[in-house]
C-alpha cells in the first residue's frame, strides 16, 4: 500500500506540475476594438419639432437663429430680422432697387398703397422719405377746396389719410375712414403687420373706385401708374408689392448667439398628442348614440372619414369608408356614426397641427364603449 500511495502521490504531483505549466492561463479572447455605435431612438414628433435657427448652420446645443446686428430689443417679436417692427414677410435681399419700384409698384392698387406708406416709412427708413414728398402734396390741396375737416387733421399726422377724403362724397366711406384711424393709431406703435394695414385701404378704395376715379387722379400718380403698366407686373407678388415698408423684410427678433441648425420658425410638431387624440375621441363618443338591440356586433364597426377646415368646421358629409351595410342594423350603425360626427361638428383642435387633422378617420366600434 505504501508503494502505491507514493506512486499515486508522485503521479499527482507530476500531473499538477504539468498542469501548472501547460494549463497556466488560457489565452485571452481576442477582442477587436470596435467603435461602439450610439443608437438613439427618436420619435417622429421630435423630427417634426423644429427650433428656430439657420438652415445652413451646423448643429448646436443651444438653438439660436442667425445673429442680428441691431441691438434694440422689440418685445414679443417672433421673426428674426433687423426690422423695427415684427413681420413674417420673407427677407428680400437688396433694398436699393426697391425705392425705384416703390413708385412703380403701387399702381395695381395705387391709393391704398400710398396711404400706409407714409405711416410706416418715417419709422423705418429715411430713404423713401425724399421720394414721397410729392405724394402728400396733392393731398392737402383738395382739402381746403372741398371739405374742411378739423377733427381728423389734428388727430392724424398722416397727410395721406386725408387725401382720399375730399374725393369721397358719401358719408359711409368717411365713417369707415374715421373708424379706421383710431385703430391704426393704437396698433401702429408696437407692431405694423402687413394685413392690418391693408384691409383699410381696400375698404376706402372701393368707395373711391365707385365714386371718384376719373376725377381724382393727380398727375403724379397717373404718371406712376402708366410707368408701372409698362413695367412687368406679377400678380403673385401683389402682397409684397402692396407692402410699402422697407423691402428688406424680416422680423424684429434679435439674436446674438451663434446660429445653429433649425428652421425659420419654432414648430411644435405636426401630430396630435395623445391627449388631443383622447379629447377628440371622447367628444365623438359623447355625440354617438350606439344603435341598441343588435346582435351582429361585427357589422356595427364603422370607419368614417371626414374633412375639416382650419377652424375645425366639417367640410362636406362624413364618408363611411368601411363597415356598416346598405340596409338593416349595419345601415343604422353607419348613419349613427355619420350623425355623431355631424353633431360634434366644430372641433376644437390645435390650429398649428392642421395638417394632421385636415382629414380624420374615426373608427366607431361599439365593443370599445362597454
Amino acid at each position, binding site marked *: 500500500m505504501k*508503494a*502505491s500511495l507514493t506512486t499515486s502521490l508522485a503521479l499527482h504531483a507530476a500531473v499538477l506540475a504539468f*498542469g501548472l505549466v501547460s494549463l497556466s492561463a*488560457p489565452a485571452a479572447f481576442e477582442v477587436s476594438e470596435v467603435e461602439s455605435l450610439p443608437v438613439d431612438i427618436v420619435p417622429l414628433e421630435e423630427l417634426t419639432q423644429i427650433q428656430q435657427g439657420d438652415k445652413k448652420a451646423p448643429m448646436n446645443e443651444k438653438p439660436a437663429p442667425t445673429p442680428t446686428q441691431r441691438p434694440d430689443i422689440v418685445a414679443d417679436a417672433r421673426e428674426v430680422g433687423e426690422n423695427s417692427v415684427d413681420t413674417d414677410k420673407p427677407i428680400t435681399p437688396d433694398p436699393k432697387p426697391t425705392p425705384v419700384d416703390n413708385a412703380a409698384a403701387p399702381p395695381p392698387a395705387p391709393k391704398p398703397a400710398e396711404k400706409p406708406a407714409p405711416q410706416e416709412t418715417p419709422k423705418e427708413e429715411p430713404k423713401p422719405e425724399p421720394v414721397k414728398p410729392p405724394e402728400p402734396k396733392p393731398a392737402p390741396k383738395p382739402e381746403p377746396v372741398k371739405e374742411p375737416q378739423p377733427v381728423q387733421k389734428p388727430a392724424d399726422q398722416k397727410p395721406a389719410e386725408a387725401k382720399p377724403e375730399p374725393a369721397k362724397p358719401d358719408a359711409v366711406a368717411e365713417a369707415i375712414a374715421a373708424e379706421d384711424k383710431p385703430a391704426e393709431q393704437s396698433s401702429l406703435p408696437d407692431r405694423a403687420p402687413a394685413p392690418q394695414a391693408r384691409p383699410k385701404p381696400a375698404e376706402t378704395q372701393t368707395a373711391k373706385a365707385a365714386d371718384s376715379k376719373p376725377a381724382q387722379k393727380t398727375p403724379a400718380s397717373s404718371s406712376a401708374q402708366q410707368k408701372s403698366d409698362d413695367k412687368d407686373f406679377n400678380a403673385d407678388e401683389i402682397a409684397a408689392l402692396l407692402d410699402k415698408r422697407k423691402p428688406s423684410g424680416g422680423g424684429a427678433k434679435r439674436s446674438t448667439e451663434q446660429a445653429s441648425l433649425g428652421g425659420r420658425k419654432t414648430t411644435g410638431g405636426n401630430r396630435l398628442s395623445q391627449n388631443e387624440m383622447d379629447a377628440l375621441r371622447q367628444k365623438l363618443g359623447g355625440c354617438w348614440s350606439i344603435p341598441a338591440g343588435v346582435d351582429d356586433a361585427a357589422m356595427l364597426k364603422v370607419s368614417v372619414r371626414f374633412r375639416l377646415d382650419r377652424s375645425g368646421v366639417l367640410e362636406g358629409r362624413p364618408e363611411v369608408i368601411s363597415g356598416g351595410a346598405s340596409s338593416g342594423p349595419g345601415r343604422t350603425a353607419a348613419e349613427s356614426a355619420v350623425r355623431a360626427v355631424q353633431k360634434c361638428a366644430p372641433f376644437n383642435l390645435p390650429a398649428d397641427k392642421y395638417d394632421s387633422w385636415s382629414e380624420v378617420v374615426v373608427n366607431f366600434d361599439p365593443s370599445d364603449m362597454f
Partner: protein
Amino acid sequence: MENIALAEPAANLSIWALFMQANWVVKLVMIGLLGASVWTWAIIFDKVVSYGRMRSALNRFEQIFWSGQSLEELYRTLSDRKTTGMGSIFVAAMREWKKSFEKGAKSPHGLQMRIDKAMDLALTREMERLEGNLGFLATIGSAAPFIGLFGTVIGIMTSFQAIAGSKSTSLAVVAPGIAEALLATAIGLLAAIPAVIAYNKLSSDAGKLAGRMEGFADEFSAILSRQIDEKVARS
C-alpha cells in the same frame, strides 16, 4: 484602459492563481478532493498490483494442487509459509482435518462441518483483503462531484457577494470568481471519474477471484468429504 482590463484577469487566471484567490472553504474542499484523488489512485495501484499477484498465486497453487502431489506433503510445505488465496483456504482446511484426526474424532459429519466452516472463514478473510478498500472508491465516485459542487456553490456565492459589493456587473469582474469556483467541481470530477471506473473494474475482478476461490473451496471440501467417508468405511 480596455487593454489593461483585459490583460489583468488573463494574468491571474492560471490554475494556481485561481486556487490562491479562492475562499478558504473552497480551498479546503479543493485540498480534500485532491487528497481523495491521491488516495483513490493509491488504492487503484494497490489493488491492481495485489489482484495481479493473487491471480498468479491462484494459478500457481492450482498447478501444484492438481499436479498429483500428496496433500500431506503440500500442507507441510505451505503451513510454515505465509499463504494467500487458495493456499490459505487449503491450509485452514488441512489444519482442521489434522486436528480432528489427531484427537481421534468419531463423527464424520462434525468433521465435515468443521472443515467447511474453517474454509469459509479463510475464504471470507481472503475476500476481505481483496475487497478491502473498494468501498472508498465507491464513496469517492459518488460523493466527490457533490463535494466539488459544494465548493463551487460556495465560491460562486462569495463571488456574487463580492460583485454586489463592487457594484459592477461587467463580465470581466464576474468571470474570475466563477472560474475559481468551477475549479472545485473540476477537481471533484477529476477524483470521481477514475474512482468510479476503477471501482467497477476492481469489484468485477474481485468477484472473479472470489469465484475461483469458492470453486476451489467447494472442490477441496468434496475431496476431503470423500476421504472422510473412505476413512470411516475403513475404520
